[in-house]
């Protein structure tokens, strides 16, 4: 164990130094972050690297009476460095412009929600030698498989602690744990010589939920489903999005578009659409931070504001309160923060991020979605993203298959789709009861009617 530092003592010291600047300072925040992790890496289906690391640091956010923000951070945790950071944050604050949109940092809260299973002592006590078993399972299954020729994979486990203190006397302190396993498998058709990859991952708060067998099996399935690719002619056809496809084509763009900062700057295609139907009644989306044990769950956000379960879109209607806010953007709109302040580490000012972003599942079985499709497309993955300001999307189907008479057929080669997201939302005509979770996103299978497919077969 490396040296221990008393963070509360450092913070008190920092606040005392800040008092010298009371005349120009409106409020300030002291943020401490500690992250300790271990990581085992597989390349060429063999253990390659064992890593242990830690990072801790503090940042100071100082806001002047005119709303100007100064920020400084360091990983040198001693009183001298803190003094230097305080001076720097004040200097930065004094150099900024007036910002009348800034109202205040959060006030103390009377209570916080209860969310279980966000910290696992088994992760804290996990030794790197003991985590080898997880990756051995991946290696073993890959070795056994006839078509698999290589795998890169990874197991990681970490614990973190955040302490937030501000001059409004807000004070929160919390620990979280995290673990994940991923597999990227390469398969080769021995006769035709074609290769393909498949990827899957699982991230959890609780170590015992990690299931290497499921991750490698899914990666292998996806890799094989994408072998022996074929070109098709351009056509208009129904498509089925897998949960992964829903995340990349629908959930991630919506998550960006309802970020209050982008929204207030009118940078997104959903501007002026609140209280309107923006798609079919199949779309209901919530951002829920209060699910026990979920990766995106939290008790408080990166400014110490209690987290919530928020409805964003209900049966196709984009709700008036369906934006994700931190305290700054909420203050600008004259409402309370939604508890979506997010920061990568102590080294960043709070931006806005999702909690668990969920498109609610439907009532019918996934197989029923395929049943009446004579000719269509299954879309699992595209590396493209839509133009967020217009909602236009034109992208390559990196992993997708032809659907013929309700059955999944050959993989697609050099095939693109083109649409506008608002058009696509309207054309969603059904969704499955089965759903999948990838990190902080959760989605069912969706069927979308009549989409432009651009094939490369002439």
């Amino acid at each position, binding site marked *: 164990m490396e040296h221990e530092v008393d963070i509360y003592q450092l913070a008190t010291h920092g606040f005392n130094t800040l008092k010298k600047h009371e005349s120009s300072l409106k409020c300030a925040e002291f943020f401490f972050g500690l992250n300790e992790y271990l990581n085992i890496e597989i390349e060429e289906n063999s253990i390659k690297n064992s*890593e242990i690391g830690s990072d801790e640091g503090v940042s100071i956010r100082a806001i002047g009476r005119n709303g100007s923000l100064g920020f400084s951070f360091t990983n040198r945790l001693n009183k001298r460095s803190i003094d230097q950071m305080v001076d720097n944050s004040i200097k930065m604050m004094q150099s900024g412009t007036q910002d009348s949109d800034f109202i205040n940092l959060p006030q103390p809260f009377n209570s916080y929600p209860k969310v279980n299973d966000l910290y696992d002592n088994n992760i804290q006590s996990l030794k790197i030698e003991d985590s080898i078993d997880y990756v051995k399972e991946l290696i073993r299954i890959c070795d056994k498989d006839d078509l698999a020729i290589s795998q890169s994979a990874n197991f990681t486990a970490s614990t973190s602690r955040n302490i937030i203190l501000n001059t409004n006397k807000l004070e929160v302190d919390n620990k979280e744990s995290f673990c994940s396993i991923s597999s990227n498998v390469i398969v080769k058709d021995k006769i035709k010589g074609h290769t393909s990859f498949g990827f899957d991952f699982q991230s959890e708060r609780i170590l015992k939920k990690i299931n290497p067998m499921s991750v490698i099996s899914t990666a292998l399935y996806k890799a094989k489903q994408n072998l022996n690719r074929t070109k098709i002619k*351009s056509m208009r056809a129904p498509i089925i999005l897998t949960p992964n496809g829903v995340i990349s084509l629908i959930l991630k763009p919506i998550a960006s578009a309802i970020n209050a900062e982008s929204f207030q700057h009118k940078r997104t295609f959903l501007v002026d659409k609140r209280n309107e139907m923006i798609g079919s009644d199949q779309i209901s989306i919530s951002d829920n931070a209060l699910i026990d044990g979920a990766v995106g769950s939290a008790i408080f956000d990166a400014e110490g504001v209690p987290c919530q379960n928020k409805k964003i879109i209900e049966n196709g209607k984009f709700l008036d309160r369906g934006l994700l806010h931190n305290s700054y953007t909420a203050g600008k709109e004259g409402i309370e923060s939604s508890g979506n302040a997010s920061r990568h580490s102590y080294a960043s000012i709070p931006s806005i991020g999702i909690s668990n972003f969920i498109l609610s599942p439907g009532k019918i079985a996934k197989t029923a979605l395929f049943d009446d499709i004579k000719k269509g497309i299954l879309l699992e993955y595209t590396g493209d993203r839509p133009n967020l300001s217009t909602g236009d999307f034109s992208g390559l189907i990196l992993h997708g298959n032809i659907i013929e008479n309700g059955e999944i057929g050959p993989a697609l080669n050099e095939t693109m789709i083109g649409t506008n997201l608002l058009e696509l939302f309207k054309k969603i005509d059904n969704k499955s009861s089965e759903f999948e979770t990838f990190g902080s996103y959760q989605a069912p299978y969706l069927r979308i009617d009549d989409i432009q497919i651009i094939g490369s077969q002439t």
Partner: protein
Amino acid sequence: MAEDNELLLFPDDLIDQLHDKARNKVEYWDIRAGLSKGNTIEFSDEKSKEITSYLLTGCSIRTFNEGGWGFRVLKSASKQNLLDEFDNAIKLAKLSSSLCKFKFHIKEKDALTQDFKINSKRKLEDVDITEKIELVKGHESIASNYSKLIKNTRTIYLDSHVNLVFLDAYGTKVNQELEILRLFSSVYAQSKGIIQNGTNSIGAVGGFEVMNTEKAISLSKKSSEQAINLLNAKSPLGGSFRVILDSKLTGTFIHEALGHACEADLVLNKESILIGKIGEKIAIEDVSVIDDPRFGQGEKLNLPYELFGCYFIDEEGTPAQKTVIIKHGVLQNFIHSLETASRMNHDPNGHGRANSNSSKPQVRMGFTFLEPKDWNLDEMIEDTKQGILCEDFQYGYTDPTTGNFQFKCRISTKIENGEKKENLRDVSFGGMTLDVLKKISAIGNESTFNYSDGICGKGGQGIRVCDGGPYIRIDDLTVGGLN
């Protein structure tokens, strides 16, 4: 300050102790330590959003034994802590090597004991924050006042002054002092319900004088022009077209579709389309591709700074050097780290790079470019009946196992009967790398050559890179469209 530099000192007696500890336990080790300080300034709509000052230290120990690596990232690097953690790092390499299937040894290399200091005319440390803020304000003002249709502007300035030390098992000790800076401008214009965006950036290794160059001065004006021009652009028609790529897109194609496939770690992991193809003709005769991340490239392009993707040594202590990837259409070399070079019986060529002291080196590009030939742009356009001139790049990616790539351009122009017609927005095009390298029908001359810089992501690390080339023309490319 004495305390600030403590981490960088590594007196001889400490180094001797490290060598003693490693002896007979691990065959290779290296240590990277550093101290960085810098500023970030972000303005939006002429108001300050973030003004940051930081001071960070970092230290990591990497160890290797018989095919297995250990890596220990430290919170602090006092002498005692370093010595204790060195033992732990040795244990990590032992753990990896006890389980790995492929046993190999790192090729011994000569010790390097040469220091490097960037020759900045205006050291970033000597420039007061107020002057940096004035620079950002100036760009915000240009963008905001460019047109009434501009609805949102954003300018970000980032700089860092870095002191680094690199040590390894062979006796290498290199001290470096670098300055790195970047300016980014993004502008949104709106008209008749349509929102469009223009984005540009400049990055360099050098001092504050970089911000006085033509490219930096014109940055926000360029973003504004782009956003306004795009308001009238139409969505493209999908189909197969003859496409002319500007130097930025040529660079992107060379980097994304070809360059990544030349990274030897992907070759070893069977994730490259170029496995077993060294010595084979994979492109038309006129194609020659180089990666040359040595300092001095800026001067060749008449720029008063070092290019953003360039470096003195990589993060494994190998000096940056010129690597010929393709010559006259024939694949010559992959790019290597110490490990891939050792395993593929090649000399390391300086591509083991990491984005910070807390990340492991991976095989990464530096400044990758296609060499120019003899076409000028007008000739290429005149010689195109039905086609698209694609300029500027939004993003791109490649499926490494198949070579299927996809790029999104910022602004494009339709070409009909050898003449430029209307503007198109969000044109995306894709193809298979090995097909497209043979479908290039024209390569531009020296005057069409340019480079661009950016951050390339791989394995969770973003690293500074440059790529470039002349304008090129490719026949029968698949273009995605909305109509």
